[in-house]
């Protein structure tokens, strides 16, 4: 499981936790998140959303 951070706003997506309140189950890998998903904090679309992998 990895942790990802939005380069625009700093939002952190933790694969282990997912975002159950947003319909993304715990354990969902970044590549399995739908393409039409957007960052919940800044609204950047997944396609633009250069997620950077954070150091473990």
């Amino acid at each position: 499981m990895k942790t990802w951070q939005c380069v625009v706003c700093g939002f952190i997506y933790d694969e282990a936790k997912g975002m159950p309140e947003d319909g993304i189950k715990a354990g969902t890998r970044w590549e399995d998140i739908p393409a039409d998903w957007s960052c919940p904090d800044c609204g950047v679309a997944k396609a633009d959303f250069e997620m950077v992998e954070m150091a473990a």
Partner: protein
Amino acid sequence: MEPVVIVGSGLAGYTLARELRKLDSVTPLTILSRDDASFYSKPMLSNALASGKSAAQIASVSAQQMAAQLGANIIADIEVEAIDTASRTLRAGGAAIRYSKLVLALGADPIELPLEGDGASEVMRVNDLAAYARFRAAIEGKKTVALLGAGLIGCEFANDLATAGYSVRVVDLAPRPLGRLLPEAAAQRVQLALAAIGVVWHLGTTARAVSRTASGLRVELADGTAFAADAVLSAIGLRPRTQLAQCAGLKVQRGIVTDRLLQTSATDVYALGDCAEVDGQSLPYVLPLMQAARALAKTLAGTATPVVYPAMPVVVKTPAMPVVVCPPPAFPGSWKLQQEAGGIEARFEDQNGKLLGFALVGAATARKQALTKVAPPLIG
């Protein structure tokens, strides 16, 4: 063909450029920046310490890389001195630059508190990456930081600095942190949580003077309290940068006035982001800027598209007590609070019980998406 010229390379300018390029890859695009034009995440500035990032690490993409990605001519380190809307010409760095359409994405300036004392000029303000780098250099190896302002940015910095081991004092005239955003009980949770990680609050008073001492700075408050600090950071608010627009004869109120097409009072001159007052609203947050950039990109590409502001929650990055707030519009109403062990859900409702806005603190922030879906749009 004269280029579309964007003045400003912050999140507003670069997001617009990126959105425009999705729709139009051929129109020449010029971006002018008063700094080095690297792309960075401004929201990260106030939580970089705890995440172990230096100022240089926050600058994720250089101007050259951005120019290549966007197919744009990016000119760094240039000040725009004047705009002549009649001849569609800018004067910048002593040269004339013609535009077909001009977009002002100028940002905002931190408001300066009038202070007495020979240390007043040492007070730092951070609203861009270069200023942040100077702040980091100033606190390197130091221990105590005084923050002026307990709003969103002040609270985020307080949390970040305290987590990184600094001794932090926060001064604000308001009786509670985040006082303009949160109802009393919710603000109190934030106050207590930050106090628990070591933040010392000086609320209901203001800084009067900052003076130099042999070992650093001394801050004196209006209530007579005084304390030593290695650095003082002021975060009392932002003022839209409007002077350039005003001198060009554009209509200016709090920000550069635009309609819902982001058009200013001058033809083919647009404004967005922190410098703009869109349909009467000046909202210096990321989500409004994204909405504006997407709408304006369509308009510039030939399809006039009024901006829509849905309910846009603002996330306050205070890990000690996370906060999400969707500020209610200026309608009559009242806060209804639901207190729970790990947090507070506060709903701002009108007299008929209709949700107008909300504030979530602590564990209740998990309900952000659910409440955002039912909150009304700001500009529908």
